[in-house]
């Protein structure tokens, strides 16, 4: 078991920038034994991590404050130390204080939270649109901008195939969604039957796939690499086994991929399109 501990100082002083600078090859997937947020790969996730860190330190401070106060009370006012209890049951000032102070703390939280929410939710001018359609139990990807690319099914790889492909089992697929780096991409998410949720943690995206409804969200990835996520809305027997894999390539490579009708040079056929890969 390999441990990867986040550098505590960088966490404290502005985790996101440090992590971004430090990460060379992006392959955003769960860290073995990890206990922290995945590294941000998009501007939304950078902001999300900042807001998270702000709230995280505030709530840690609150927990520590309550713990210390409780510990003090438990020692100072134990029966032996304080045999005669006071009869105080009012103190208007302190009651006002412990109502007002939490309100002020919440105001500190709510402003950046709202900024993040609106930034994340409002899709900017995008340069590429992709469509992710949930099905039981795989994802279908389509590129409405390009007529020459047929939609294809992204099936999960079974254990042996994942190992052969060097991809994590239960996260790797036979046909990732392919997008260019540093490009604003709009994602349309819907479903054919049960509900699903299209999730890439390092993008800060989780969008429910609802039949009869097209949801939209967006991302812009900083670096080339492969990014993984799980389906995050219970959808039946193989809910645990319908991963999302996004391959982020250079703009030039993406151009070639499109020109090649959705296949990388060297590949003869379009990515994916294969049928069910060993579903249990």
């Amino acid at each position, binding site marked *: 078991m390999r441990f990867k501990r986040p550098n505590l100082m960088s966490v404290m002083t502005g985790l996101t920038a440090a992590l971004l600078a430090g990460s060379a090859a992006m392959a955003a997937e769960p860290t073995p034994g990890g206990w922290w947020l995945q590294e941000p790969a998009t501007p939304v996730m950078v902001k999300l991590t900042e807001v998270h860190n702000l709230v995280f330190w505030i709530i840690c401070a609150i927990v520590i404050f309550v713990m210390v106060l409780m510990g003090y009370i438990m020692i100072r006012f134990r029966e032996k130390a304080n045999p005669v209890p006071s009869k105080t049951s009012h103190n208007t000032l302190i009651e006002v204080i412990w109502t007002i102070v939490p309100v002020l703390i919440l105001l500190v939280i709510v402003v950046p939270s709202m900024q993040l929410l609106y930034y994340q939710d409002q899709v900017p001018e995008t340069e590429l649109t992709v469509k992710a359609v949930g099905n039981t139990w795989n994802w279908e990807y389509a590129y409405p901008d390009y007529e020459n690319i047929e939609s294809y099914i992204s099936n999960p790889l079974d254990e042996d195939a994942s190992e052969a492909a060097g991809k994590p089992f239960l996260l790797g697929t036979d046909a990732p969604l392919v997008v260019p780096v540093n490009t604003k991409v709009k994602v349309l998410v819907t479903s054919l039957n049960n509900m699903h949720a299209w999730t890439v943690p390092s993008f800060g995206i*989780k969008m429910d796939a609802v039949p009869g409804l097209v949801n939209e969200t967006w991302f812009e990835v900083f670096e080339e690499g492969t990014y993984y996520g*799980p389906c995050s809305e219970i959808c039946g027997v193989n809910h645990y086994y319908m991963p999302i894999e996004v391959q982020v390539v250079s703009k030039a490579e993406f151009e070639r991929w499109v020109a090649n009708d959705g296949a990388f040079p060297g590949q003869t056929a379009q990515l994916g399109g294969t049928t069910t890969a060993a579903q249990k």
Partner: protein
Amino acid sequence: MVAIPETGGYGADHDDGKPGFFARWFYSTNHKDIGTLYLIFGIISGLIGGYLSFMMRLELMEPGFQYFANGHDFNVFASMHGLIMIFFMVMPAVIGGFGNWFVPIMIGAPDMAFPRMNNLSFWLLPVALICLLISFFVPGTAAGDGFGGGWVMYPPLSTSGSPGPAFDFIIIGLLAAGFSSIFGAINFITTILNMRAPGMTLHKMPLFAWSVLVTAFLLLLALPVLAASLFMLFTDRIDGGTGFFDPAMGGDPQMFQHLFWFFGHPEVYIMILPAFGIISHIVSTFSRKPIFGYLGMAYAMVAIGVVGFVVWAHHMYTVGMDVNLKAYFLAATLIIAVPTGVKIFSWLATMWGGSIRYTIPMQWALAFIFLFVIGGVTGVMLANAGVDAYLHDTYYVVAHFHYVLSMGAVFGIFAGFYYWFGKMSGIQYNKWLAAAHFWLFFIGVNVIFFPQHFLGYNGMQRRVADYPEAFELWNKVSSYGAIITLIGTGFFFLMLLEAFTIGRKTRRVGDNYWGDGATTLEWTLSSPPPFHQFNTLPRIEDTDEH
């Protein structure tokens, strides 16, 4: 809190007239007997729900499939664990059990307002539980028996996604449980508003009675919405039936989510508010001080109840809601932190200046306060709609709601159980067995649920039977916690066994075995109280103690 007149065991001086065994326990109209039935029922359901969760933790101890045939079987266990723990363990224990036992006594009433309806409320529950248990063994989907759509029962997974009769049994069972709760709520509201002893104004009423009153209103307003949405699911599931939630027929699956959470969010306060009431009494008793800021405490619960009805869609941030709606639900949800903070600080202020005894119920209560703070602050994190895009439906959420329920509501139940065990049975618990139960349980649940925050941060989604290897470490730790908790639960039953065999001969308790810190009316009665109490109503003196 309540000034008690010269005592002497109200109503103990006449023939109890206890009926025979069958009539007493099966036709019961006595609030204390019905309360006992509810508690026994809650313990049995807790064992079933606990078994389901223990099997899930065993399965998740390692990647790959160990015990379950497929993902569906795991989903069935997860779904039923949620439904059984909520509707058949926590609610019967806190509302049916402690509510029935102590609300009439605390307000100085001889019994509940509608004793026969009280009996009906209870007996609907075993019927409901049997329906749920049947659903395990009848076809659900092609993948296996039972219903695996989560306790939230979202369509289309609960309609076209689960064609077998398993889910129909769940609908029938939950409707029965829902009507049980509605009848119970009507009973509590009527009792509390009409049957308080002379002199006991609402502002003198003990906080546990306040908590049950607020809870009863939440039940009365929320459960009909659940019943309606279950009926809608039921008719949607019929071939050629309705299409409320079917987009092919012009329906909207998201509407179910709104209806469900309009019930579901008040439901979480239904589970925790009575625990708040119990904790207040325990903290006050063992600090030998009146509750600090009594009115603030009572109205904080009212505020939580009211605001609890207008925050439901924070469970649905990722469904594709309008951003302004999300902003509203974000702000409204954060507001709940304020009355909750008032309660936490008032408990600490009650202890401040007190003379604190660390009895078993006080240990549970202190653990409750501390762990509820942890569960509460992660709620502040999850209220952030933006951050929730990362954390929603991950194990972070699982950790959060188990901190507020498994360590909140359940710790409240155990705190109340040890606090009132002597009052209800006349026997004091063995404190060593009780201490072993507390410490193993306290350590166990923290080992289970604290690492689940890490799993959520690392991106592990909820309700999965198998996971990528990266999640193995903390899943393993979490599963070890389940083993510790199981041993702790074993000590609970040892404690019960010891009490009813050895303890009943050696540790009988008197009227008020907690001393002068315990000031509510149940401590003026014998332990256990007479079959009928308060034939002469107690009179509450007009003092201004709080």
